[in-house]
């Protein structure tokens, strides 16, 4: 496989122009700035396939596997322009999770089997980590896999599995050994969701969308060749896969979009005439500006070839909390209208205040809740003692 050119040989600005022009010309208008944060594969399939045909579906995978092979700096440009142009999020667990994990830790056979099918969209992946009793405390997971000849037999339950009902494969963390050290005895295994004994049940979220699911496993037989890495040693694999992409949990695009909506609504409703509102708006505006400065400080580390430390999650905390404060302000500006579930009208244009408000509840929870992040930072960055 090849790319049309060596993207990393370009400057970030040159790459930005090329990337933006093509994306703007090729991402369908009706998919821009979708209300839905997590559209299903079918809803965005044409965009997914267009990206793959261009060779731009997978920004970070090495070129030999069909990726663009972008360095971290170019990847940041890719993500920034994607957000600026309002492109929809594609079901990306294959691109962002299973693919990198296999490239790093998979066998040649696994890579040959799975990577091409991620790119064609034949395999749509979901991530089976959380369980009813294992959320923030992920290492307490109990879904069990027992060896039986050439197979493992899996029993247990996953939950909060995003888009599992639209996926056909799941990257599963299972317990293969019960050990005093809970991080030991966890294994990564690839499971086809059409296997007998798998049941997927969507859960309706606060926005009345079905974008996460429960997944039940009852005596599900999975070939042992689907184990990634070594049996019992999956914890380290599951924790390392994010790498430099942790920076994107703090990318300013969500609060930035919400602030533009707030500004439109506030202008129309006359809120800027109120000095108290102006002060609050100015605070939100500057928080967004300063988030950009802080994001840039970490992006610069990546551009200069460095690696991110635990401290990058300060972005995730600040970004998710800012997003919430902006959407809460939208409800305040809405006044009596805050009771409406559908869009607030500014002329003939809808402002999805309630949609954004509800959406903003999630990022403070997923990817490690903000409280978990603070506890990690306390130890990793400030060196504070354990309780």
């Amino acid at each position, binding site marked *: 496989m090849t790319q049309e050119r060596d993207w990393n040989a370009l400057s970030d600005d040159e790459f930005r122009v090329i990337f933006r022009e093509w994306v703007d010309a090729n991402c369908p208008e009706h998919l821009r700035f979708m209300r839905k944060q997590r559209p299903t594969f079918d809803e965005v399939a044409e965009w997914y396939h267009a990206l793959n045909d261009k060779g731009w579906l997978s920004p970070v995978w090495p070129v030999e596997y069909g990726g663009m092979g972008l360095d971290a700096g170019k990847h940041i440009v890719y993500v920034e322009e994607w957000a600026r142009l309002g492109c929809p999020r594609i079901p990306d667990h294959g691109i962002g999770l299973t693919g990198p994990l296999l490239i790093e830790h998979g066998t040649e056979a696994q890579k040959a089997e799975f990577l091409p099918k991620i790119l064609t969209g034949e395999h749509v992946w979901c991530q089976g980590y959380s369980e009813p009793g294992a959320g923030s405390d992920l290492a307490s997971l109990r879904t069990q896999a027992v060896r039986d000849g050439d197979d493992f037999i899996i029993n247990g339950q996953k939950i909060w599995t995003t888009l599992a009902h639209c996926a056909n494969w799941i990257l599963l963390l299972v317990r293969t050994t019960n050990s005093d050290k809970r991080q030991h005895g966890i294994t990564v295994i690839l499971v086809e969701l059409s296997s007998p004994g798998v049941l997927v049940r969507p859960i309706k979220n606060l926005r009345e969308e079905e974008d996460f699911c429960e997944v039940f496993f009852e005596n599900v037989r999975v070939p042992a060749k689907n184990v990634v890495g070594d049996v019992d040693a999956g914890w380290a694999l599951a924790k390392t896969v994010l790498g430099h992409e942790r920076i994107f949990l703090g990318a300013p695009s969500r609060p930035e979009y919400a602030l533009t909506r707030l500004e439109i609504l506030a202008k129309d409703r006359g809120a800027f005439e109120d000095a108290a509102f*102006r*002060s609050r*708006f*100015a*605070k939100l*505006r*500057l928080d967004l*500006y*300063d988030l*950009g*400065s*802080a994001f*840039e*400080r970490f992006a*610069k580390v990546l551009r200069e070839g460095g690696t991110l430390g635990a*401290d990058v999650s*300060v972005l995730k*905390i*600040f970004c998710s909390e800012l997003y919430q404060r902006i959407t809460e302000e939208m409800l305040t500006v809405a006044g009596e209208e805050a009771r409406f579930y559908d869009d607030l009208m500014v002329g003939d244009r809808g402002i999805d205040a309630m949609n954004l408000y509800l959406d903003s509840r999630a990022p403070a929870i997923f990817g490690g809740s903000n*409280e978990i992040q*603070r*506890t990690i*930072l*306390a130890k990793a*960055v*400030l*060196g*504070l*003692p*354990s*309780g």
Partner: protein
Amino acid sequence: MPRLILDDPDQTLEMLRDSVATLAERVDGAEVFRSRRARDAELDRDLWSEMATAGWLGLLLPESMGGSELGAGELTVLAEAFGRALITEPFAALAVLPGRILANIGGAAAGEIATGIADGSRIVPFLWQDTRGARAPMTLSAEGTLSGQVDLVTAAYAATDYLVLCKQDGELALVHLPARSERFSLSSRPGLDAAMIGQVTAKGVSVDAGSILARGATLDAALSDAIEMTRLALAAELAGVGAKALEETVAYTKERVQFGKPIASFQVIQHRLVDMWGDAEFACAAVTNAVEMMRDATPEEAGQSVLAAKARAGDSAVTITRRAIHLHGAMGFTDECNIGLYNKRAITLNAALGQAEELRLEFLARETAA
């Protein structure tokens, strides 16, 4: 731990940091703070001379004015180091602000005064605000006499010269006068950070035409730029104060044992410390951004970045140091404990040239107008 991260190809910035650190080994900032307070002094003359000798007072000035002709990066690293070392001499008010105004105006007269600032021989406060911060309260009559009252003056008594921003026929003028005149009357009040704050009343001080250094558009431009650079210095110093107060507090909470454990092991304390750390990181990132924008962006964008940096660093330092007092418990409420001094310094620097909310509203107004 949070600090400014700037490109430093020839290690100038690291050398500046080291030289302040070397001074701080000999001179205990907290001790100077307390002795200045005990004497009702405006500044510490010995320390000020050392700062002049080190070349810090003329850092930004052109070589023709006895300066080092360095830029925003060096300025912020130096001010950050002062903040960290609790060196609370009036660097921004007596070196950066008047020096920058004079450098912007240029010419022989301004150059001579600026040279004196750089070598420490002249103390030249800028007389330009009333008690509430309104600009140019003094007036210059058509006959050339200066009258009125200014407040918030740094080193009113120690001054050798005054730079006065006054109004003449509704237009701004910048006047240079020797500080010794019977027609100036002085008073002062204690400042929160152990420096006396002066009030100067002029009762018909005669000003000859040669003492008027600038007027009109030249003066407006010189002043805006100088305010911007001084705000940047204040922001950097605030970032240093906040970061150091955080470090002191982390160290203290690791040592302080209650219920058989260091209090830093309690999650409620940990999360507060992490939030303080996040504030300090954002302050440093905002100042770094401003330095980079001054180098790379348009003047308008650079101006916005400085407003953001001063607002962020001011808010952060005041909040961090206030929480730091609390986390030191009763000890933090004593005068003996240094942590309170960081809070006093943070409030003082934050109050100068616009508190956070005012700066944010200015940012918004400029953005809306653009």
